[in-house]
């Protein structure tokens, strides 16, 4: 039963690193998913720091009603690039390119991604796309300044001339193709490279979420890419797809953009949901509660996500309000199921409050706030009331800051697997408290600001000096988040090769904890028999398997010693 059989590395690999190139050429030519994933991780974290720096400047500007830190024009560039960097260059690539790239193949017992060279291409497109977008700051006229949503006709060549906007479009084309290739790669990997016995309903939740994410990428990103090509054609080839002057329809851009944009929200969120699920289960020493319900919820979110785009467009007066309202409200149901499943997983567990687990609990609370306020926005009358105010800004910052907490949890949880070394727990916990409290101090005043009528994307608010008090609190919160990011970097430097992790530091459940840290070139020298979604746990604790479907009485043999 617990016998482990050798599984030879796949032939044709010739992939013994010793014979390959070394140094910079090794990095340029690698097709190893772990190296590519690590490159993704480092690049995405750098992007997070850059986007965070923009955020700090924005908050500095808003800390007084007549802020003079930046000009109106610079402010528009800053929040455009803050949103663009965070969404396109940090959250997305981190979600489906970084940890996913490293962990998904290992979790299903695969030697690599299905298309290793395509995987490498994805990374190079992501890197060059990021450079392209950010280089807008160095051209005449500055970076793109029409908001990260680039609403037509503000993004037309009439309203926004200048090559910063073109660099923004070009950067998005590159990162868009990068995402599509990653989506193809993840789907093929999950469908074709699973280990024997790893049926679809034994895949870890993280992998399941990444599969749905990959399907959503394939559904959504081509639409964005097509829209960007139309936008570029309007700007330079004299077409009039989005301009009224030539008979075009500006609202079409919003339809196209949000048809990508709302699935994108779940493309960002689902991988982090997956990370949090894994973390909570492992650190509660329990299986994921309602494993199949969790998968069903993920698939439901994926299915509904294609029918909710126009809840971003309620106030255009051009969309079918009841349809988008009920579809958007329904998304609350599978999300709620997930929330209760997470709680069910912790319930009567033996919770180990490592940094990763703290981050996951911080995620739960922050995401709860973001999720509940999202329900308001699915109701058109309440959206008319709060649309484009700081209430919306606060809502999605609650959500994305929850994702950042999840991302940090993922880094603390899987970092030891990737590098072989643990991070310092004491610094990690201080970082957690700065991040968690900072997030609430940052977002909660913004909800109130929105309810008091402060619109988003304002550089100054001279008519409303009473808004300053709440804005100052938000700025304090943003600074605390900044401190937490610095602590994270400090922790990496401090813990560098200091605390060897061993193969299975957390008593993990899934296959990545069965192999060494870091894993060998093709990930496994041996595999355990896979009889549930927790093969490593079953191998290490054969007497503590998950209770059968529907059984909630104690096991006959008594699982508690």
């Amino acid at each position: 039963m617990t016998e482990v059989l050798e599984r030879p590395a796949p032939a044709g690999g010739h992939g013994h690193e010793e014979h390959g190139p070394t140094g910079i050429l090794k990095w340029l030519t690698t097709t190893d998913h772990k190296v590519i994933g690590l490159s993704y991780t480092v690049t995405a974290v750098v992007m997070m720091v850059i986007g965070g720096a923009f955020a700090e400047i924005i908050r500095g500007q808003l800390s007084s009603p007549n802020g003079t830190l930046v000009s109106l024009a610079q402010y528009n560039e800053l929040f455009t690039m803050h949103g663009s960097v965070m969404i396109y260059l940090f959250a997305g690539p981190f979600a489906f390119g970084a940890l996913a790239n490293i962990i998904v193949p290992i979790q299903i017992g695969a030697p690599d991604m299905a298309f290793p060279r395509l995987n490498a291409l994805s990374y190079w497109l992501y890197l060059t796309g990021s450079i392209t977008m950010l280089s807008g700051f160095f051209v005449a006229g500055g970076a793109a300044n029409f908001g990260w949503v680039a609403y037509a006709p503000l993004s037309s060549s009439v309203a926004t001339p200048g090559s910063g906007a073109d660099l923004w479009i070009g950067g998005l084309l590159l990162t868009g193709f990068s995402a599509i290739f990653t989506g193809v790669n993840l789907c093929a990997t999950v469908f074709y490279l699973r280990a024997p016995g790893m049926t679809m309903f034994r895949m870890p939740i993280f992998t399941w979420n990444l599969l749905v994410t990959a399907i959503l990428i394939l559904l959504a990103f081509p639409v964005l890419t097509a829209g960007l090509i139309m936008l570029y054609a309007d700007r330079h080839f004299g077409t009039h797809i989005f301009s009224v002057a030539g008979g075009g329809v500006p609202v079409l851009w919003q339809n196209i953009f949000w048809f990508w944009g709302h699935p994108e929200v779940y493309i960002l969120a689902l991988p982090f949901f997956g990370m949090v699920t894994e973390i909570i289960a492992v650190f509660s020493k329990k299986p994921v509660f309602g494993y199949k319900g969790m998968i069903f919820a993920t698939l439901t979110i994926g299915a509904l996500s294609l029918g909710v785009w126009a809840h971003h467009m309620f106030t255009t007066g051009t969309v079918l309000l009841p349809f988008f309202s009920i579809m958007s409200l329904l998304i609350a149901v599978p999300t709620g199921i997930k929330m209760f499943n997470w709680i069910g997983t912790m319930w009567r567990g033996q919770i180990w409050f490592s940094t990763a687990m703290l981050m996951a609990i911080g995620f739960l609370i922050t995401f709860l706030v973001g999720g509940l306020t999202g329900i308001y926005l699915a109701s058109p009358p309440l959206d008319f009331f709060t649309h484009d105010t700081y209430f919306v800004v606060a809502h999605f910052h609650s959500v994305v800051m929850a994702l950042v907490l999840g991302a940090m949890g993922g880094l603390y949880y899987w970092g030891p697997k990737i590098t072989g070394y643990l991070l310092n727990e004491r610094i990690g916990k201080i970082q957690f408290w700065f991040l968690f409290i900072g997030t609430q101090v940052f977002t909660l005043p913004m909800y109130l600001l929105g309810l008091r009528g402060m619109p988003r994307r304002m550089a100054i608010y001279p008519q409303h000096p009473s808004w300053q008090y709440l804005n100052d609190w938000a700025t304090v919160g943003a600074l605390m988040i900044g401190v937490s990011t610095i602590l994270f970097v400090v922790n990496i430097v401090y813990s560098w090769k200091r605390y060897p992790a061993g193969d299975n530091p957390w008593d993990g459940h899934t296959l990545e904890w069965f192999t060494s840290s870091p894993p060998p070139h093709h990930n496994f020298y041996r595999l355990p028999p896979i009889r549930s979604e927790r093969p490593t746990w079953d191998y290490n604790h054969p007497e503590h398997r998950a209770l059968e479907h529907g059984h909630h009485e104690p096991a006959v043999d008594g699982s508690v010693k």
Partner: protein
Amino acid sequence: MEPSALPPQGGPERPRRRGRLRTLLILPVAALALAGCTVPRFGASPGATTSSKSVFHLWQGFSIGAAIIGTLVVVLIAWSVLFHRRRGEAIPRQTQYHIPLELTYTIIPVLIVLGLFAATLVVENKEVANPKTDVVIDVNAFQWGWKFSYPGHDVVVVGQTTQDPTMVMPVDQNVRINLTSSDVVHGFYVHAFNFSRYALPGVLNQFTLRATSTGLFNGQCTQLCGLYHSLMFFRVRVVSAGQYQAWLSAQANSAAAQAAQSATNQQISSIVPTKPTKG
């Protein structure tokens, strides 16, 4: 103002059945409205129009639901964090499924969502209803200002960035706003009305405001529209019907002065011509 339970795109109205349905749906909202003074405001305010009040009550309803669910979830999380901490190396019971429990927390949210949707429909249909119009005001947004024209009265108010043009409207009358944009997307937002709507180029957006109290209210562009977006203010002055008529005739008399201003505006808005396609 007769609210209709039908969505605007719906078929022919059947008054009796719809009426009963409406009564049924409106009950919880009405109950909230009666209790309006005791229910917390949850940060919002009733505002100064008829629909802003129903939005406010809807807001209260949603907030009560959110508060209950939020508290429940936080208590559950706090409970397991406090009482299910690791004590020793024992391995807890490996419970994975509890089908009745899982079904419960699937079905109850579905019911809650349907309830929220029903309440939403009631308020939404009131807000997008098309009642008899007493006064029409054409609102045109441009980079970076507003133009308020009063068709049939030869009155135009126009102002850019810091000039704060003021839209004057009568109280207790149905004011039909015809909202357009000359160039990019703008947002017509009056905080005291709990309402916003995009001003889209090429689209005529219509809605009705019925103010319930007089006063001066701040309005602002909410959709990013370029460099001076932060300064694209306007004001709404709600006055009595008599004052409104007096203001109209006073404005018409000084039409010459207005003509000069609207010429400036023409110059600005001619960059991107408007072509309303929907009405």
